[in-house]
């Protein structure tokens, strides 16, 4: 084995990854929280009122980052599911299953805040347009993955079955993203774009992007916490877990 493969195997071993996660997790939460509070101040206080939507537009500072996280979490889950299915790496199974509930939480917040934004701006809580429907389907995909994972007794078999479902559901990601271009939706098009100029003023863009960074960190904080739990469950009989459990009680 060359040095890189060796390093990869070392990182991927449950006790090593658990140790890294234990250190990294509180930092992810703490930095995410601080950045998030700064972004909130920027979005709720510093950013000017929108000329068309008044102050209602301020929902964007949580709605859009959560929507991005819903998609990002799914992509992260699917990438790990792919590795889990092809190379049968234990850690990837755990990481994939750890990201499902976190992604579901972000998708749920996206749907609720979108609804709360839709009522004053569109005059309706809900409409079956392509963006809203595909986003709801994303939430159901998360529920399907979580449900399947808990329906099978053997943890590794359960993770593989749920990983397969997660991979099939990837087809929904471009549908969510491009729905506002492919169909005539009530939902507006993309405001922030990676390619080409964004359609948002800098005074409103920075709190939005900072909140996006904060939610990413928060996501990894929770994924690491759930991964630690998952690794402990998988390796419950192993020596390193016994030591950890007894040390934790003291």
């Amino acid at each position, binding site marked *: 084995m060359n040095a890189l493969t060796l390093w990869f195997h070392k990182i991927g071993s449950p006790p090593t990854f658990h140790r890294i996660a234990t250190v990294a997790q509180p930092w992810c939460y703490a930095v995410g929280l601080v950045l998030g509070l700064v972004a909130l101040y920027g979005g709720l206080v510093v950013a000017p009122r929108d000329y068309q939507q008044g102050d*209602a537009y301020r929902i964007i500072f949580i709605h859009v980052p959560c929507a991005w996280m819903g998609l990002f979490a799914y992509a992260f889950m699917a990438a790990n599911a792919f590795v889990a299915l092809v190379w049968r790496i234990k850690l990837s199974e755990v990481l994939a299953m750890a990201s499902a509930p*976190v992604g579901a939480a972000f998708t749920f917040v996206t749907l*609720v805040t979108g609804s*709360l934004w839709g009522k004053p701006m569109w005059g309706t809580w809900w409409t079956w347009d392509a963006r809203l429907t595909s986003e709801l389907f994303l939430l159901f995909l998360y529920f399907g993955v979580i449900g399947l994972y808990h329906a099978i007794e053997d943890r590794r078999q359960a993770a593989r079955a749920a990983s397969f479902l997660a991979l099939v559901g990837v087809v929904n990601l471009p549908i969510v993203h491009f729905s506002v271009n492919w169909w005539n939706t009530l939902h507006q098009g993309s405001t922030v774009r990676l390619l080409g100029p964004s359609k948002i003023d800098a005074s409103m863009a920075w709190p939005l992007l900072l909140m996006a960074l904060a939610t990413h960190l928060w996501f990894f904080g*929770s994924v690491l*916490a759930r991964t630690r739990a998952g690794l402990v469950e998988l390796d*419950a009989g192993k020596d390193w877990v016994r030591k950890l459990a007894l040390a934790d009680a003291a």
Partner: protein
Amino acid sequence: MHDFIDMGGYGSYVWASYAVFFIVLALEALAARAQRLRQLAQVRGRIKRTAARVDATR
């Protein structure tokens, strides 16, 4: 201050959104923590039961 809470008449929608955001993410993080503690407690329980069985057969 009143203007800030009122949000130009949209206060209830804006603050409800932010409340949902904070409550859901906080609950999710607490659930993650609870799951980890539960797994560790289960491992401890298993260690204790095994030790008790060894004592009983002695």
